[in-house]
């Protein structure tokens, strides 16, 4: 389909006329239209940005207010630094700094999971896309099936398996399954199959590289964007995973942040009448702060991963 692009437009009378008129004339006609289009573009972008970002702004402002102010004041009002500190003190002290324990657990499980997922998914995607072997399509189909299988059905079998392997209630019980990242395999597969030119690989093979050499010297350097993409998505998937740690861990001190947050919600009077306000120090600002702690690393990692998602990495590679 791609190769039908250039021809039809070339022969249009309108385009021919404008081509004949020359670039100068086109440039003079553009400014007012461009400004209008640019403005419309900005308005649309800002509207969507507002939609996505306003709740997050609310969340950032919430710990600066007291529970009373959260309800009585303007939702986007800024509270005080004093309240912010008090909120932090409460949530930090909650059950012997459990929030930090959860944070550390999340970090351990996610880093392990991402490293394992990258080691698996990137080569696998390459293999599926650019090598030919029996069972390639079967593997792709099985990957798809596993991706589509509802996770709640896999809870019991995974739990039983981990028990058989004597790994239940340990960090490996989540890190190993985290290494299975079919979504990453597919991203990698689609990337390698649509962006690496075959002749580049052929050239390398002709030069005497074995398959591993081709992968290491040709494909991998070009694969920085997909490594960043898969690594980032693997990180977010592991960081926000609730089910697996909930099922695998027996005690709250091993929980990562999503399960810890769920427990915090059940300890907040506003969401659980049984946890009366008098007993639990966790009110909504404290919950908001815990949520911020839970999501901040994702923002930080994304900020750095963005650098690797650069434009036009293919530029120059096809020039022979």
């Amino acid at each position, binding site marked *: 389909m791609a190769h039908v692009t250039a021809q039809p437009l070339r022969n249009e009378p309108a385009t021919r006329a404008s081509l004949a008129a020359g670039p100068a004339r086109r440039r003079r006609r553009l400014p007012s239209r461009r400004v209008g289009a640019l403005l419309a*573009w900005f308005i649309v*972008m800002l509207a969507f940005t507002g939609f996505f970002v306003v709740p997050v702004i609310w969340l950032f402002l919430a710990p600066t207010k007291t529970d009373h102010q959260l309800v009585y004041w303007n939702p*986007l009002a800024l509270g005080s630094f004093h309240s912010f500190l008090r909120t932090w003190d409460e949530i930090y002290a909650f059950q012997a700094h459990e929030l930090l324990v959860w944070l550390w657990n999340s970090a351990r499980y996610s880093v392990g999971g991402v490293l394992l997922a990258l080691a698996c998914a990137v*080569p696998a995607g390459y293999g599926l896309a650019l090598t030919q072997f029996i069972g390639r399509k079967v593997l792709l189909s099985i990957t798809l099936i596993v991706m589509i299988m509802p996770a709640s059905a896999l809870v019991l079998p995974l739990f039983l398996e981990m028990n058989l392997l004597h790994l239940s209630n340990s960090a490996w019980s989540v890190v190993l399954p985290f290494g299975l990242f*079919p979504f990453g395999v597919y991203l990698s597969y689609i990337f390698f199959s649509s962006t690496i030119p075959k002749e580049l690989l052929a050239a390398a093979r002709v030069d005497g590289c074995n398959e591993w050499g081709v992968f290491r010297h040709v494909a991998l350097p070009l694969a920085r964007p997909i490594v960043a993409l898969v690594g980032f998505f693997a990180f977010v998937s592991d960081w926000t995973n609730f089910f697996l740690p909930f099922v695998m861990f027996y005690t709250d001190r091993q929980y990562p942040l999503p399960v810890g947050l769920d427990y915090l919600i059940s300890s907040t009077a506003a969401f659980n009448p049984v946890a009366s306000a008098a007993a639990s120090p966790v009110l909504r600002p404290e919950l908001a702060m815990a949520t911020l702690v839970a999501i901040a690393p994702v923002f930080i990692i994304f900020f750095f991963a963005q650098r690797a998602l650069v434009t036009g990495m293919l530029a120059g590679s096809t020039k022979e």
Partner: protein
Amino acid sequence: MSDTTFLPVPTRAQARTGRGQAGGRHRAGYAFVAVYLVLLILFGVLPTAYAVYLAFTKAAGRRVSVGPVSFAQWAGLSNFFTTGRDFRFLPAFEHIAVYLAIWLVVLVVLVLALALLLHGGVRRTVPFFRFLFYLPGALAGSASVLVWAFMLDPDISPWHFALSRLHYSSMPQTIAPGHLPVIFAVIAFWTGAGGWIVVMNGALNNISDEVIDSAKIDGANAWQLAVRIKLPLIKRWVVFMLILAFAAGTQLFVEPQLLGAASLGMVSPTWSPNQLAYYLATQNGNFNYAAAISVDLLIVGLMAATLLVFRSKLFQLD
């Protein structure tokens, strides 16, 4: 499929110069997927097979022992019939059907529109907007309970002006049963769009500038550039997104669950089929019924996936 079709591509016959080379590539293929294969079997295939086994066997009853392993009694399709007749089953699927219709359209249209707008707009702002669109993606599941408890309550929400325009004066009114499919689609879009926009933006970035420049020289306007040139070039990614969006839609779980927590139970814990499966597994301890419903959902998802894969030739190599 990609811009490389402009350039001469060696045919399969040409590539297979000598059996040694082809054989080597053949074996190497296995090496690349080896570790993945192990994990896939251990944590993907075996659990899925076990879940299917659960779906076709009885929860209680006599067990058949073969050496150290004992097998449960064969149930045939009885688990499927029992769950199918459950009073919550049909309503759950009705809910999902409505949700899916809204969700698929909203996600695909808006994600592609935003990705194309980003790619075709002011390039320097791309990282900025992409980051901002992605922000909600970090708030998955329990992290967004608090946020939506406030966003959907007209009295305390920053969206007060919109909600009161719709004549909602309390949270129960906002989350009235008829509104739920739309609300869940909004929440799911809010959380998930950013990630897909990142993927599509990455896909669009892989289109070499030459293709775009030559199209512009040919006089393509922004719309034609987007629809006739860019979209076809990222077709594989779009199909992938469609497959996953369809599966995610039919398997909706997080959004109704989190709204149930945010509203102290005003959303049924079995609103969606996946929730019903989870409920039967956890509250009733009946993993077999849960597996039956999960297999139902798997079949639905696979039908859509198969259709899309075949129509788009997603699995074929160039």
